[in-house]
């Protein structure tokens, strides 16, 4: 192998690297290989397959037949999905605002180390340890008009005269589900915010106080700006999670009453497992995936 030396003495880019370099490059590839395989098999391959599925008529058993772009063009004809898009966006907006407010409130409450604070932190986080399906069933049981304890309690306290239709009307079903989600996630999000709050140096607070800042000024001028990256993380998690809402509606409201609480993922589930239209479900999944990637990119840029 000959090495061409240029006038400047530098090795040209296209020339072959020395053997030592090449062996280091191979070593590098070998180190990266396990991760590359995992990423390829677990992340890239399913995505490629879902995209391929979305371009085919895909029966439960038997051979798939290429039918692109029919699965995509039919999306607009699916009124359930169109309604679900609007419903999911509405749900996401309400949930994100309320969840952030409650989580921030809880985090501020348990921010300082005081005697017994561990109990409150644990109590707030505890619902986060309950599985979503279990939480859905729990709320279904508690709010059930026949055997749930909430209605008799409200009535005995004189707050209501008759059982409330907790999941019997569209608005109440949405309200009840959002309550469930906040109960389930406020503690978890509080934990995220707590780490952010505790990363703010105490010196900054001390400096602010010695400058005569009141509590509100400290909160708006110091806490919130310095908490921005943590808030951004929480917002991204909340928005993404809400747009992918499934369990809470599937278990708790079953999409009802009268399809008023059908989320986008529920429509995907229905297409795949009730209508056996796997290709159509894959197309909806791809559309949702693209929208989520776009939205997350936008949020990352804005909130960074």
């Amino acid at each position, binding site marked *: 192998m000959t090495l061409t030396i240029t006038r400047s003495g530098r090795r040209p880019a296209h020339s072959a690297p020395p053997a030592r370099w090449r062996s280091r490059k191979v070593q590098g590839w070998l180190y990266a290989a396990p991760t590359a395989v995992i990423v390829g098999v677990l992340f890239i*391959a*399913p*995505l490629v*397959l*879902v995209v*391929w*599925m979305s371009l085919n008529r895909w*029966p*439960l*058993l*038997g*051979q798939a037949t290429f039918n692109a772009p029919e699965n995509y063009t039919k999306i607009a004809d699916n009124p*359930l999905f169109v309604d679900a898009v609007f419903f999911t966006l509405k749900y996401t907006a309400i949930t994100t605002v309320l969840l952030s407010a409650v989580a921030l409130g809880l985090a501020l409450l348990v921010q300082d180390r005081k005697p017994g604070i561990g109990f409150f932190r644990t109590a707030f986080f505890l619902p986060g340890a309950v*599985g*979503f399906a279990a939480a859905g069933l729990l709320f279904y049981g508690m709010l*059930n*008009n*026949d055997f749930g304890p909430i209605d008799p309690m409200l009535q005995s306290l004189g707050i209501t005269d008759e*059982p409330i*239709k907790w*999941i*019997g009307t569209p608005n109440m079903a949405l309200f009840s589900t959002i309550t469930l989600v906040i109960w389930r*996630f406020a503690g978890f999000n509080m934990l995220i915010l707590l780490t952010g709050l505790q990363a703010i140096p105490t010196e900054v607070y001390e400096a602010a106080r010695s400058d005569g800042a009141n509590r509100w000024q400290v909160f708006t001028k110091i806490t919130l700006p310095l908490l921005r990256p943590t808030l951004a993380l929480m917002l991204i*998690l*909340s928005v*993404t*999670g809400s747009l*992918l*809402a*499934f*369990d809470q509606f*599937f278990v708790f409201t*079953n*999409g*009802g*009453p*009268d*399809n008023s609480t*059908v989320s986008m*993922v*529920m*429509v*995907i*589930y*229905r297409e*795949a*497992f*009730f*209508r*056996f239209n*796997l290709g159509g*479900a*894959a197309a909806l*999944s791809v559309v*949702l*995936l693209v929208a989520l990637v776009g939205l997350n990119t936008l949020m990352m840029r804005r909130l960074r």
Partner: protein
Amino acid sequence: MRRRLAGISLLGVLALTAAACGSGGGGGGGGGSTQAADSPVTITMWTRAATQTQSERLVQEYNKTHKNQVKLTVIPTDNYQPRIAAAAGAKQLPDVFAADVIFVPNYTSQGLFMDITDRVNALPYKAGLAPSHMKLGTLDGKMYTLPHTLDLSVWFWNKDLYEKAGLDPEQGPKTLKEFAQHATTIQEKLGKDGKVHGTFFGGNCGGCYVFTFWPSVWAAGGQVMNAEGTQSLNDQPAMTDVFKIYRDLYEKKVTGPTTKEEQGPTWTGFFPKGEIGVMPMPSTTLGLMPKDVKIGVTPIAGPDGGESTFVGGDSIGISSTSKNADAAWEFLSWTVSDQAQVEVMAKNKDVLARTDLASNKYSAEDPRVVLINSLVAKGQTPFALRFGQTFNDPQGPWLRYAREAVFGDVSKLPQLNAEITKSLQQ
């Protein structure tokens, strides 16, 4: 929140598994058997919770008396169809699986069951197998399933409540109008403290509506679909008359307070507690009723009379991907044998999968069972390839239609009926 990803990632995983398992599959085929001749084989079986009791009894008795064994998995009724779909997509179906008989045409058309025509034809009692179940399990002249359990819709009435309300406890309703009168009387006489109600039905459950309302249409001589299962006739007077009577009962608050919200899983739970005067119930619940509740059973009638029933229940077949076809058939054919039908099913007051055994040493002990058995010939099992997505799916068009008809705006019905037809044809 990662759990929420489940629905979407399931598809990806499904695709991945399907690919990993390689191509092929397809429906039908004679099904080879790989087990050695003498070694015992354990076959896997799935059933849905709605008919769990009957399946469990059959499996227990079979396992007690046979070398081969059956491992039964019970899956919640609401999740059964999705589980079958996911398992089929991943070629992970059990050796045998029972399915709600109305879903069977869709499953056979998707190639999920193995062709068992030759094996069925060799059965000496082939002609006695429940005709509606056999009809729905046959596609293009080939047979794919056997009847597994029969579950008929009938009216149950509570004799104690009838007596307390001044009604004749030995006379159940003979027409739907009489049914409404009885329910109203019980509500007026006994319903003041809110614990007892005239009647009840699953008002937010598509499957409950078809199971309990359609027999009244058939009893009146009407139909709910064309024979091909491609056009809805639910906007015809036979059905709208039935809806009107139930709507009236709801408006007069004769139905339990949670009727409108009842999604299905708990709709049969109120009657055994002695809280309901008269209501449609599945016949399989008769054997599960508490001993201290005196119950009368009568056929579902039309507004002015007639008799009919929804012949529901499960059919069972060998999955097209099973590697244990011979062992699976040994179990399946045993479940419809004289011994299993009489000593397991009839003994527990269940409807038999064979009409030639309807009169047996147990059925005569309870006239209610004799009555239920006699209804098999009068009832119907509707056929539609797209039954599940149209009528059972909570997001399907039928539930919207039925709820508008009973609780909502009847002016929306023509458009919603067109959507039912559209769904049947998709």
